[in-house]
Protein backbone atom coordinates (compact mmCIF):
# COMPACT_ATOMS: atom_id res chain seq x y z
CA UNK A 1 0.00 0.00 0.00
CA UNK A 2 1.25 3.36 -0.94
CA UNK A 3 2.01 5.94 1.78
CA UNK A 4 0.11 9.11 0.91
CA UNK A 5 1.89 12.19 2.28
CA UNK A 6 0.37 15.67 2.06
CA UNK A 7 2.72 18.58 2.82
CA UNK A 8 1.07 21.93 3.66
CA UNK A 9 3.12 24.84 2.37
CA UNK A 10 2.42 28.55 2.65
CA UNK A 11 3.19 31.33 0.21
CA UNK A 12 4.44 34.29 2.25
CA UNK A 13 5.93 37.77 1.74
CA UNK A 14 9.73 37.84 1.78
CA UNK A 15 10.77 38.66 5.35
CA UNK A 16 13.79 40.60 4.14
CA UNK A 17 11.49 42.87 2.08
CA UNK A 18 9.35 45.76 3.27
CA UNK A 19 6.25 43.98 4.59
CA UNK A 20 3.08 46.05 4.95
CA UNK A 21 -0.66 45.99 5.47
CA UNK A 22 -3.12 46.96 2.73
CA UNK A 23 -5.96 49.46 3.31
CA UNK A 24 -8.32 46.71 4.45
CA UNK A 25 -5.70 45.70 7.05
CA UNK A 26 -4.90 42.41 5.33
CA UNK A 27 -1.44 41.48 4.13
CA UNK A 28 -0.25 43.70 1.27
CA UNK A 29 0.95 41.18 -1.29
CA UNK A 30 1.61 43.67 -4.10
CA UNK A 31 4.51 45.56 -2.61
CA UNK A 32 6.79 42.70 -1.72
CA UNK A 33 7.89 39.44 -3.36
CA UNK A 34 6.31 36.21 -2.25
CA UNK A 35 8.01 32.88 -1.73
CA UNK A 36 7.64 29.43 -0.17
CA UNK A 37 7.85 29.97 3.61
CA UNK A 38 11.41 28.90 4.42
CA UNK A 39 10.22 26.86 7.38
CA UNK A 40 8.03 24.78 5.05
CA UNK A 41 11.13 23.69 3.12
CA UNK A 42 11.98 21.62 6.21
CA UNK A 43 8.55 19.94 5.94
CA UNK A 44 9.14 19.12 2.26
CA UNK A 45 12.60 17.78 3.12
CA UNK A 46 11.26 15.43 5.81
CA UNK A 47 8.50 14.26 3.44
CA UNK A 48 11.15 13.40 0.85
CA UNK A 49 13.21 11.50 3.42
CA UNK A 50 10.20 9.59 4.77
CA UNK A 51 9.11 8.74 1.21
CA UNK A 52 12.63 7.56 0.46
CA UNK A 53 12.44 5.07 3.34
CA UNK A 54 8.98 3.78 2.35
CA UNK A 55 8.31 0.99 -0.16
CA UNK A 56 6.01 3.17 -2.11
CA UNK A 57 5.01 6.73 -1.33
CA UNK A 58 3.44 9.71 -3.03
CA UNK A 59 3.95 13.31 -1.91
CA UNK A 60 1.31 15.96 -2.61
CA UNK A 61 2.08 19.57 -1.73
CA UNK A 62 -0.92 21.70 -0.82
CA UNK A 63 -1.35 25.43 -0.49
CA UNK A 64 -4.23 27.80 0.17
CA UNK A 65 -3.45 31.16 -1.36
CA UNK A 66 -3.76 33.52 -4.32
CA UNK A 67 -2.72 32.85 -7.94
CA UNK A 68 0.97 33.61 -7.21
CA UNK A 69 1.03 30.92 -4.53
CA UNK A 70 1.68 28.47 -7.39
CA UNK A 71 5.31 29.63 -7.10
CA UNK A 72 5.52 28.01 -3.67
CA UNK A 73 4.11 24.77 -5.11
CA UNK A 74 6.62 24.82 -8.00
CA UNK A 75 9.50 25.21 -5.57
CA UNK A 76 8.29 22.21 -3.55
CA UNK A 77 7.78 20.18 -6.75
CA UNK A 78 11.29 21.06 -7.90
CA UNK A 79 12.64 19.78 -4.56
CA UNK A 80 11.03 16.42 -5.45
CA UNK A 81 7.33 16.30 -4.47
CA UNK A 82 5.13 14.39 -6.93
CA UNK A 83 2.07 16.56 -7.39
CA UNK A 84 0.40 19.70 -6.10
CA UNK A 85 -2.99 20.98 -5.02
CA UNK A 86 -3.78 24.69 -5.05
CA UNK A 87 -6.90 26.03 -3.32
CA UNK A 88 -7.72 29.41 -4.78
CA UNK A 89 -10.88 31.48 -4.58
CA UNK A 90 -11.51 35.24 -4.47
CA UNK A 91 -13.64 34.70 -1.37
CA UNK A 92 -10.54 33.51 0.54
CA UNK A 93 -9.05 37.02 0.81
CA UNK A 94 -8.55 37.88 4.48
CA UNK A 95 -9.08 34.36 5.89
CA UNK A 96 -7.84 33.81 9.44
CA UNK A 97 -6.39 30.68 10.99
CA UNK A 98 -9.73 29.01 11.74
CA UNK A 99 -10.81 29.57 8.15
CA UNK A 100 -7.50 28.51 6.62
CA UNK A 101 -7.49 25.33 8.67
CA UNK A 102 -11.06 24.54 7.57
CA UNK A 103 -10.07 24.85 3.92
CA UNK A 104 -6.88 22.83 4.37
CA UNK A 105 -8.75 20.05 6.22
CA UNK A 106 -11.34 19.73 3.44
CA UNK A 107 -8.66 19.71 0.75
CA UNK A 108 -6.63 17.08 2.63
CA UNK A 109 -9.68 14.84 3.01
CA UNK A 110 -10.47 15.18 -0.67
CA UNK A 111 -6.89 14.37 -1.68
CA UNK A 112 -6.63 11.38 0.66
CA UNK A 113 -3.77 11.01 3.17
CA UNK A 114 -1.92 8.82 5.62
CA UNK A 115 0.42 11.53 6.85
CA UNK A 116 0.18 15.34 6.82
CA UNK A 117 3.42 17.28 7.31
CA UNK A 118 3.56 21.01 8.13
CA UNK A 119 6.23 23.53 9.02
CA UNK A 120 6.57 24.68 12.65
CA UNK A 121 5.17 28.15 11.84
CA UNK A 122 4.70 30.38 8.84
CA UNK A 123 7.21 33.22 8.52
CA UNK A 124 4.40 35.81 8.25
CA UNK A 125 1.56 34.98 10.66
CA UNK A 126 3.99 32.97 12.85
CA UNK A 127 1.12 31.59 14.92
CA UNK A 128 2.54 28.06 15.03
CA UNK A 129 -0.87 26.57 15.72
CA UNK A 130 -2.21 25.45 12.37
CA UNK A 131 -0.89 21.86 12.59
CA UNK A 132 -2.61 21.33 15.97
CA UNK A 133 -5.84 22.74 14.57
CA UNK A 134 -5.61 20.45 11.53
CA UNK A 135 -5.25 17.43 13.80
CA UNK A 136 -8.31 18.57 15.76
CA UNK A 137 -10.35 19.07 12.60
CA UNK A 138 -9.24 15.81 10.96
CA UNK A 139 -9.66 13.85 14.20
CA UNK A 140 -6.19 12.27 14.02
CA UNK A 141 -3.15 12.42 16.37
CA UNK A 142 -0.95 15.52 16.38
CA UNK A 143 2.77 14.84 16.52
CA UNK A 144 4.07 18.38 16.38
CA UNK A 145 7.22 20.50 16.69
CA UNK A 146 9.53 17.59 15.95
CA UNK A 147 13.26 18.01 15.58
CA UNK A 148 13.53 14.36 14.51
CA UNK A 149 10.90 12.25 12.77
CA UNK A 150 10.60 8.73 11.38
CA UNK A 151 7.75 6.68 9.94
CA UNK A 152 7.45 2.90 9.76
CA UNK A 153 5.05 0.05 10.48
CA UNK A 154 2.04 2.36 10.43
CA UNK A 155 3.55 4.54 13.15
CA UNK A 156 5.16 7.95 13.36
CA UNK A 157 7.82 8.60 15.98
CA UNK A 158 9.61 11.81 16.80
CA UNK A 159 11.43 13.99 19.29
CA UNK A 160 9.90 17.21 20.57
CA UNK A 161 12.27 19.61 22.32
CA UNK A 162 10.09 21.64 24.65
CA UNK A 163 10.68 24.47 27.08
CA UNK A 164 11.39 22.30 30.06
CA UNK A 165 11.95 18.83 28.61
CA UNK A 166 12.68 16.81 25.52
CA UNK A 167 10.00 14.22 24.74
CA UNK A 168 9.88 11.14 22.54
CA UNK A 169 6.45 10.83 20.89
CA UNK A 170 4.68 8.02 19.11
CA UNK A 171 1.33 7.80 17.26
CA UNK A 172 -0.44 5.63 14.72
CA UNK A 173 -1.11 6.81 11.18
CA UNK A 174 -2.98 8.71 9.92
CA UNK A 175 -1.47 11.67 11.76
CA UNK A 176 -0.49 15.34 11.45
CA UNK A 177 3.19 16.14 11.96
CA UNK A 178 5.01 19.47 12.12
CA UNK A 179 8.79 19.76 11.95
CA UNK A 180 11.17 22.45 13.21
CA UNK A 181 14.20 23.94 11.52
CA UNK A 182 16.31 21.55 13.65
CA UNK A 183 14.96 18.55 11.71
CA UNK A 184 17.62 18.68 9.01
CA UNK A 185 18.77 21.12 6.36
CA UNK A 186 16.47 21.29 3.31
CA UNK A 187 17.91 20.34 -0.08
CA UNK A 188 18.27 22.76 -2.96
CA UNK A 189 16.30 21.92 -6.10
CA UNK A 190 18.56 20.47 -8.81
CA UNK A 191 18.39 21.64 -12.42
CA UNK A 192 16.82 18.28 -13.26
CA UNK A 193 14.29 18.82 -10.46
CA UNK A 194 13.38 22.25 -11.75
CA UNK A 195 12.84 20.90 -15.29
CA UNK A 196 10.82 17.92 -14.03
CA UNK A 197 8.62 20.19 -11.86
CA UNK A 198 7.28 21.91 -14.97
CA UNK A 199 5.63 18.68 -16.07
CA UNK A 200 4.17 17.70 -12.69
CA UNK A 201 0.40 18.07 -12.22
CA UNK A 202 -1.03 21.03 -10.27
CA UNK A 203 -4.70 20.55 -9.45
CA UNK A 204 -6.84 23.56 -8.51
CA UNK A 205 -9.84 23.61 -6.22
CA UNK A 206 -12.20 26.45 -5.41
CA UNK A 207 -14.52 26.68 -2.41
CA UNK A 208 -17.40 25.01 -4.26
CA UNK A 209 -15.20 21.98 -5.05
CA UNK A 210 -14.59 21.66 -1.31
CA UNK A 211 -18.22 22.27 -0.23
CA UNK A 212 -17.25 25.32 1.82
CA UNK A 213 -19.65 28.24 2.23
CA UNK A 214 -17.95 31.52 1.24
CA UNK A 215 -19.39 33.05 4.45
CA UNK A 216 -17.19 30.75 6.56
CA UNK A 217 -13.93 32.15 5.18
CA UNK A 218 -12.50 35.46 3.99
CA UNK A 219 -12.66 38.78 5.81
CA UNK A 220 -16.42 38.60 6.25
CA UNK A 221 -16.32 35.11 7.75
CA UNK A 222 -13.27 35.66 9.93
CA UNK A 223 -13.42 34.79 13.64
CA UNK A 224 -11.00 37.64 14.35
CA UNK A 225 -10.86 41.31 13.31
CA UNK A 226 -7.92 43.65 12.87
CA UNK A 227 -8.96 47.16 13.94
CA UNK A 228 -5.66 48.93 13.40
CA UNK A 229 -2.07 48.49 12.27
CA UNK A 230 0.63 51.06 12.86
CA UNK A 231 4.23 50.97 11.80
CA UNK A 232 6.53 50.91 14.77
CA UNK A 233 8.49 54.15 14.83
CA UNK A 234 12.11 53.59 13.90
CA UNK A 235 14.20 53.47 17.07
CA UNK A 236 15.85 56.78 17.71
CA UNK A 237 19.49 56.49 16.80
CA UNK A 238 21.47 55.44 19.83
CA UNK A 239 25.05 56.18 20.72
CA UNK A 240 27.61 54.13 18.83
CA UNK A 241 31.25 54.51 19.87
CA UNK A 242 34.44 52.92 18.67
CA UNK A 243 36.40 50.92 21.21
CA UNK A 244 39.73 52.60 21.82
CA UNK A 245 40.43 50.47 24.87
CA UNK A 246 37.77 52.10 27.08
CA UNK A 247 34.71 50.48 25.43
CA UNK A 248 34.01 48.11 28.30
CA UNK A 249 34.21 50.93 30.84
CA UNK A 250 32.02 53.26 28.76
CA UNK A 251 29.44 50.55 28.40
CA UNK A 252 29.46 49.91 32.15
CA UNK A 253 28.87 53.63 32.72
CA UNK A 254 25.91 53.53 30.33
CA UNK A 255 24.45 50.49 32.11
CA UNK A 256 24.94 52.15 35.49
CA UNK A 257 23.24 55.33 34.28
CA UNK A 258 20.24 53.20 33.20
CA UNK A 259 20.32 51.47 36.62
CA UNK A 260 21.15 48.00 35.31
CA UNK A 261 24.09 47.85 37.70
Amino acid sequence: MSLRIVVCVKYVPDATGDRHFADDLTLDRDDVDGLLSELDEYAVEQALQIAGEADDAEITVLTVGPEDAKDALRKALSMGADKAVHVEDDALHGTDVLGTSLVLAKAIEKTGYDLVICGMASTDGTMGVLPAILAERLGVPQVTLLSEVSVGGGQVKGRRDGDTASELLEASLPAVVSVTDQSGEARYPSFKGIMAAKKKPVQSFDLEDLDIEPGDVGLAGAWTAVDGATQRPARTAGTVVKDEGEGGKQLAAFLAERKFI
Partner: protein
Amino acid sequence: MAEVLVYVDHVDGAVRKPTLELLTLARRLGEPVAVALGAGAGATAAVLAEHGAVKVLTADAPEFADYLVVPKVDALQAAYDAVSPAAVLLPSSAEAKEIAARLAVRIGSGLLTDAVDLEAGADGPVATQSVFAASFTTKTRVSRGTPVITVKPNSAPVEAAPAAGAVETLAVTFGERSTGTKIVSRSPRESTGRPELTEAAIVVSGGRGVNGAENFAVIEALADSLGAAVGASRAAVDAGWYPHANQVGQTGKSVSPQLYIASGISGAIQHRAGMQTSKTIVAINKDAEAPIFDLVDYGIVGDLFDVVPKLTEEVEARKG
Protein backbone atom coordinates in the same frame (compact mmCIF):
# COMPACT_ATOMS: atom_id res chain seq x y z
CA MET B 1 -18.73 40.35 37.16
CA ALA B 2 -17.68 38.22 34.20
CA GLU B 3 -15.23 35.41 34.83
CA VAL B 4 -12.04 34.95 32.81
CA LEU B 5 -10.31 31.58 32.54
CA VAL B 6 -6.56 31.62 32.99
CA TYR B 7 -4.57 28.53 32.05
CA VAL B 8 -1.77 27.94 34.54
CA ASP B 9 1.72 27.07 33.34
CA HIS B 10 3.54 25.39 36.19
CA VAL B 11 6.26 22.83 36.81
CA ASP B 12 5.24 20.41 39.59
CA GLY B 13 3.28 23.13 41.34
CA ALA B 14 5.77 25.98 40.82
CA VAL B 15 3.82 28.61 38.84
CA ARG B 16 5.84 30.23 36.05
CA LYS B 17 5.99 34.01 35.95
CA PRO B 18 4.05 34.50 32.65
CA THR B 19 0.97 33.03 34.37
CA LEU B 20 1.14 35.67 37.11
CA GLU B 21 1.35 38.34 34.38
CA LEU B 22 -1.77 36.80 32.81
CA LEU B 23 -3.62 37.26 36.07
CA THR B 24 -2.84 41.00 35.96
CA LEU B 25 -4.30 41.18 32.44
CA ALA B 26 -7.28 38.98 33.31
CA ARG B 27 -8.27 41.37 36.10
CA ARG B 28 -8.72 44.10 33.48
CA LEU B 29 -11.40 41.91 31.87
CA GLY B 30 -13.14 40.32 34.84
CA GLU B 31 -12.57 37.89 37.68
CA PRO B 32 -9.77 35.41 37.06
CA VAL B 33 -10.56 31.72 37.44
CA ALA B 34 -7.34 29.72 37.18
CA VAL B 35 -7.11 26.21 35.72
CA ALA B 36 -4.15 24.14 36.93
CA LEU B 37 -3.57 20.64 35.57
CA GLY B 38 -1.26 17.73 36.31
CA ALA B 39 1.11 16.82 39.15
CA GLY B 40 1.28 19.56 41.76
CA ALA B 41 -1.83 21.38 40.47
CA GLY B 42 -3.17 21.85 44.00
CA ALA B 43 0.08 23.39 45.20
CA THR B 44 -0.36 26.34 42.81
CA ALA B 45 -3.41 27.71 44.63
CA ALA B 46 -1.72 29.94 47.20
CA VAL B 47 0.34 31.98 44.74
CA LEU B 48 -2.58 32.19 42.28
CA ALA B 49 -4.89 33.50 45.03
CA GLU B 50 -2.27 36.04 46.06
CA HIS B 51 -2.29 37.36 42.47
CA GLY B 52 -6.03 37.60 42.01
CA ALA B 53 -7.54 34.19 41.26
CA VAL B 54 -11.03 34.05 42.74
CA LYS B 55 -11.14 30.32 42.13
CA VAL B 56 -8.60 27.64 41.23
CA LEU B 57 -9.88 24.62 39.30
CA THR B 58 -7.50 21.69 39.56
CA ALA B 59 -7.31 18.27 37.97
CA ASP B 60 -4.68 15.57 37.94
CA ALA B 61 -4.64 12.30 36.02
CA PRO B 62 -1.94 10.17 34.39
CA GLU B 63 -3.25 11.22 30.96
CA PHE B 64 -1.76 14.73 31.36
CA ALA B 65 1.76 13.36 31.58
CA ASP B 66 1.42 10.36 29.28
CA TYR B 67 -0.19 11.88 26.18
CA LEU B 68 0.46 15.05 24.18
CA VAL B 69 -1.70 18.19 24.46
CA VAL B 70 -5.21 16.72 23.90
CA PRO B 71 -5.94 15.65 27.52
CA LYS B 72 -5.25 19.23 28.58
CA VAL B 73 -7.66 20.49 25.91
CA ASP B 74 -10.32 18.13 27.28
CA ALA B 75 -9.75 19.57 30.76
CA LEU B 76 -9.78 23.21 29.67
CA GLN B 77 -12.96 22.53 27.75
CA ALA B 78 -14.52 21.08 30.92
CA ALA B 79 -13.54 24.28 32.76
CA TYR B 80 -14.98 26.36 29.92
CA ASP B 81 -18.28 24.46 30.12
CA ALA B 82 -18.40 24.85 33.90
CA VAL B 83 -17.61 28.59 33.97
CA SER B 84 -18.91 30.10 30.67
CA PRO B 85 -16.13 32.70 30.80
CA ALA B 86 -15.91 36.04 28.97
CA ALA B 87 -12.45 35.11 27.68
CA VAL B 88 -9.81 32.38 27.93
CA LEU B 89 -6.19 33.45 28.41
CA LEU B 90 -3.11 31.27 28.05
CA PRO B 91 0.63 31.96 28.03
CA SER B 92 2.30 31.92 24.59
CA SER B 93 4.39 28.82 25.17
CA ALA B 94 4.49 26.31 22.31
CA GLU B 95 2.31 23.85 24.19
CA ALA B 96 -0.20 26.37 25.54
CA LYS B 97 -0.64 27.86 22.05
CA GLU B 98 -1.58 24.41 20.74
CA ILE B 99 -4.02 23.91 23.63
CA ALA B 100 -5.56 27.32 22.91
CA ALA B 101 -5.89 26.55 19.22
CA ARG B 102 -7.68 23.25 19.68
CA LEU B 103 -9.99 24.74 22.32
CA ALA B 104 -10.87 27.60 19.93
CA VAL B 105 -11.93 25.10 17.25
CA ARG B 106 -13.99 23.08 19.70
CA ILE B 107 -15.91 26.05 21.09
CA GLY B 108 -16.21 27.74 17.68
CA SER B 109 -14.26 30.82 18.76
CA GLY B 110 -11.63 33.03 17.21
CA LEU B 111 -8.00 32.82 18.30
CA LEU B 112 -5.34 35.50 18.82
CA THR B 113 -1.78 34.44 19.58
CA ASP B 114 1.26 36.24 20.98
CA ALA B 115 -0.54 39.31 22.33
CA VAL B 116 1.81 41.80 24.01
CA ASP B 117 -0.97 43.75 25.73
CA LEU B 118 -4.66 43.39 26.50
CA GLU B 119 -7.41 45.89 27.37
CA ALA B 120 -11.16 45.72 27.84
CA GLY B 121 -12.99 47.18 24.83
CA ALA B 122 -16.58 47.87 23.84
CA ASP B 123 -16.71 44.65 21.78
CA GLY B 124 -14.65 42.48 24.11
CA PRO B 125 -10.92 42.33 24.83
CA VAL B 126 -8.62 44.23 22.49
CA ALA B 127 -5.20 42.65 21.99
CA THR B 128 -2.03 44.37 20.87
CA GLN B 129 0.16 42.20 18.66
CA SER B 130 3.65 42.95 17.42
CA VAL B 131 4.02 41.53 13.90
CA PHE B 132 6.42 41.31 10.94
CA ALA B 133 9.49 41.07 13.16
CA ALA B 134 8.05 43.78 15.42
CA SER B 135 7.91 46.37 12.62
CA PHE B 136 4.11 46.75 13.02
CA THR B 137 1.80 46.93 16.00
CA THR B 138 -1.77 45.74 15.47
CA LYS B 139 -4.96 46.03 17.50
CA THR B 140 -7.03 42.89 17.12
CA ARG B 141 -10.18 41.39 18.50
CA VAL B 142 -12.08 38.13 18.38
CA SER B 143 -15.32 38.70 16.49
CA ARG B 144 -16.96 35.27 16.84
CA GLY B 145 -17.35 33.23 20.01
CA THR B 146 -15.50 33.58 23.32
CA PRO B 147 -12.06 35.18 22.80
CA VAL B 148 -9.19 32.71 23.18
CA ILE B 149 -5.96 34.67 23.51
CA THR B 150 -2.35 33.71 24.19
CA VAL B 151 -0.02 36.31 25.69
CA LYS B 152 3.76 36.61 25.45
CA PRO B 153 5.94 36.70 28.56
CA ASN B 154 6.83 40.17 29.92
CA SER B 155 3.59 41.72 28.63
CA ALA B 156 2.30 42.89 31.99
CA PRO B 157 3.62 43.52 35.50
CA VAL B 158 3.17 40.90 38.19
CA GLU B 159 0.92 42.48 40.83
CA ALA B 160 -0.27 41.20 44.18
CA ALA B 161 -4.09 41.37 44.43
CA PRO B 162 -5.21 38.91 47.07
CA ALA B 163 -8.41 37.03 46.30
CA ALA B 164 -10.20 33.97 47.68
CA GLY B 165 -8.61 31.42 45.36
CA ALA B 166 -10.94 28.68 46.55
CA VAL B 167 -9.72 25.34 45.22
CA GLU B 168 -12.26 23.15 43.41
CA THR B 169 -11.63 19.85 41.73
CA LEU B 170 -12.47 19.89 38.07
CA ALA B 171 -14.19 16.76 36.74
CA VAL B 172 -12.68 15.81 33.38
CA THR B 173 -13.88 13.14 30.97
CA PHE B 174 -11.16 12.30 28.52
CA GLY B 175 -12.25 11.86 24.90
CA GLU B 176 -11.30 8.87 22.78
CA ARG B 177 -8.69 10.96 20.96
CA SER B 178 -6.88 12.15 24.06
CA THR B 179 -4.62 9.07 23.99
CA GLY B 180 -3.66 9.48 20.31
CA THR B 181 -0.10 10.70 20.82
CA LYS B 182 1.86 8.82 23.44
CA ILE B 183 4.75 10.48 25.28
CA VAL B 184 7.12 7.52 25.38
CA SER B 185 9.79 9.24 27.46
CA ARG B 186 10.72 12.63 28.82
CA SER B 187 14.14 13.99 29.69
CA PRO B 188 13.95 17.23 31.67
CA ARG B 189 16.26 20.02 30.62
CA GLU B 190 19.19 20.45 32.97
CA SER B 191 18.96 23.62 35.02
CA THR B 192 21.84 26.07 34.56
CA GLY B 193 20.88 28.07 37.64
CA ARG B 194 20.42 31.13 35.41
CA PRO B 195 17.05 32.82 34.90
CA GLU B 196 14.69 31.37 32.27
CA LEU B 197 15.45 33.01 28.91
CA THR B 198 11.95 34.27 28.06
CA GLU B 199 11.32 35.58 31.56
CA ALA B 200 14.70 37.17 32.29
CA ALA B 201 14.99 40.91 32.86
CA ILE B 202 18.44 40.90 31.22
CA VAL B 203 19.61 38.71 28.34
CA VAL B 204 23.23 38.49 27.19
CA SER B 205 23.58 36.86 23.76
CA GLY B 206 26.45 35.65 21.63
CA GLY B 207 26.63 34.96 17.91
CA ARG B 208 29.01 33.71 15.26
CA GLY B 209 31.53 36.30 16.42
CA VAL B 210 32.01 34.33 19.65
CA ASN B 211 33.81 31.80 17.48
CA GLY B 212 33.73 28.57 19.46
CA ALA B 213 31.86 26.73 22.21
CA GLU B 214 34.56 27.32 24.82
CA ASN B 215 34.52 31.07 24.14
CA PHE B 216 30.92 31.23 25.32
CA ALA B 217 32.44 31.34 28.81
CA VAL B 218 33.08 35.05 28.10
CA ILE B 219 29.36 35.59 27.44
CA GLU B 220 28.36 33.50 30.46
CA ALA B 221 30.66 35.45 32.77
CA LEU B 222 29.02 38.74 31.75
CA ALA B 223 25.57 37.17 32.14
CA ASP B 224 26.42 35.95 35.63
CA SER B 225 27.75 39.34 36.70
CA LEU B 226 24.42 40.89 35.67
CA GLY B 227 22.19 38.03 36.86
CA ALA B 228 21.13 37.54 33.25
CA ALA B 229 20.03 34.69 31.00
CA VAL B 230 22.27 33.60 28.11
CA GLY B 231 21.01 33.71 24.52
CA ALA B 232 22.55 32.73 21.20
CA SER B 233 22.03 33.40 17.52
CA ARG B 234 21.11 30.59 15.19
CA ALA B 235 24.57 30.71 13.63
CA ALA B 236 26.09 29.96 17.05
CA VAL B 237 23.53 27.22 17.72
CA ASP B 238 23.94 25.62 14.29
CA ALA B 239 27.70 25.56 14.84
CA GLY B 240 27.05 23.53 18.00
CA TRP B 241 28.49 26.17 20.33
CA TYR B 242 25.36 26.59 22.46
CA PRO B 243 22.12 24.59 22.97
CA HIS B 244 19.16 25.25 20.73
CA ALA B 245 17.02 25.95 23.81
CA ASN B 246 18.95 29.24 24.12
CA GLN B 247 18.37 30.40 20.55
CA VAL B 248 16.80 33.85 20.29
CA GLY B 249 14.81 34.70 17.18
CA GLN B 250 12.02 33.70 14.89
CA THR B 251 12.57 29.97 15.29
CA GLY B 252 14.07 30.25 18.72
CA LYS B 253 12.75 32.05 21.79
CA SER B 254 11.17 35.42 21.62
CA VAL B 255 12.50 37.66 24.39
CA SER B 256 11.44 41.08 25.59
CA PRO B 257 13.76 41.90 28.49
CA GLN B 258 14.57 45.27 30.02
CA LEU B 259 18.10 44.93 28.62
CA TYR B 260 19.44 42.89 25.68
CA ILE B 261 23.19 42.73 25.04
CA ALA B 262 24.21 41.23 21.67
CA SER B 263 27.86 40.34 21.12
CA GLY B 264 29.15 39.18 17.75
CA ILE B 265 25.65 39.14 16.28
CA SER B 266 24.98 40.87 12.94
CA GLY B 267 21.26 41.47 13.47
CA ALA B 268 19.58 39.47 10.68
CA ILE B 269 15.81 39.97 10.38
CA GLN B 270 15.11 36.52 11.85
CA HIS B 271 17.20 37.34 14.92
CA ARG B 272 15.58 40.76 15.28
CA ALA B 273 12.14 39.09 15.18
CA GLY B 274 12.94 37.60 18.56
CA MET B 275 14.52 40.54 20.40
CA GLN B 276 13.45 43.80 18.79
CA THR B 277 10.90 44.56 21.52
CA SER B 278 13.61 44.57 24.22
CA LYS B 279 13.44 47.86 26.13
CA THR B 280 17.14 48.74 26.00
CA ILE B 281 19.40 47.21 23.33
CA VAL B 282 23.19 47.15 23.46
CA ALA B 283 25.51 45.64 20.83
CA ILE B 284 29.18 44.88 20.57
CA ASN B 285 30.36 44.15 17.04
CA LYS B 286 33.60 44.77 15.22
CA ASP B 287 31.79 45.71 12.01
CA ALA B 288 30.47 49.31 12.18
CA GLU B 289 28.08 48.48 9.32
CA ALA B 290 26.36 45.56 11.12
CA PRO B 291 22.55 46.04 10.93
CA ILE B 292 22.25 45.43 14.69
CA PHE B 293 23.56 49.00 15.21
CA ASP B 294 20.31 50.34 13.68
CA LEU B 295 18.49 49.05 16.76
CA VAL B 296 20.80 49.95 19.60
CA ASP B 297 20.57 52.41 22.43
CA TYR B 298 24.28 51.96 22.90
CA GLY B 299 26.73 50.26 20.58
CA ILE B 300 30.43 49.57 20.71
CA VAL B 301 32.36 48.99 17.51
CA GLY B 302 35.07 46.69 18.72
CA ASP B 303 36.32 43.19 19.39
CA LEU B 304 34.04 41.41 21.84
CA PHE B 305 37.03 39.63 23.37
CA ASP B 306 38.37 43.05 24.44
CA VAL B 307 35.10 44.71 25.38
CA VAL B 308 33.10 41.98 27.12
CA PRO B 309 35.69 40.86 29.73
CA LYS B 310 36.39 44.51 30.66
CA LEU B 311 32.68 45.16 30.97
CA THR B 312 32.32 42.11 33.22
CA GLU B 313 35.22 43.30 35.37
CA GLU B 314 33.70 46.75 35.64
CA VAL B 315 30.28 45.37 36.57
CA GLU B 316 31.84 43.21 39.30
CA ALA B 317 33.83 46.21 40.56
CA ARG B 318 30.77 48.47 40.70
CA LYS B 319 28.82 45.78 42.56
CA GLY B 320 31.85 45.41 44.83
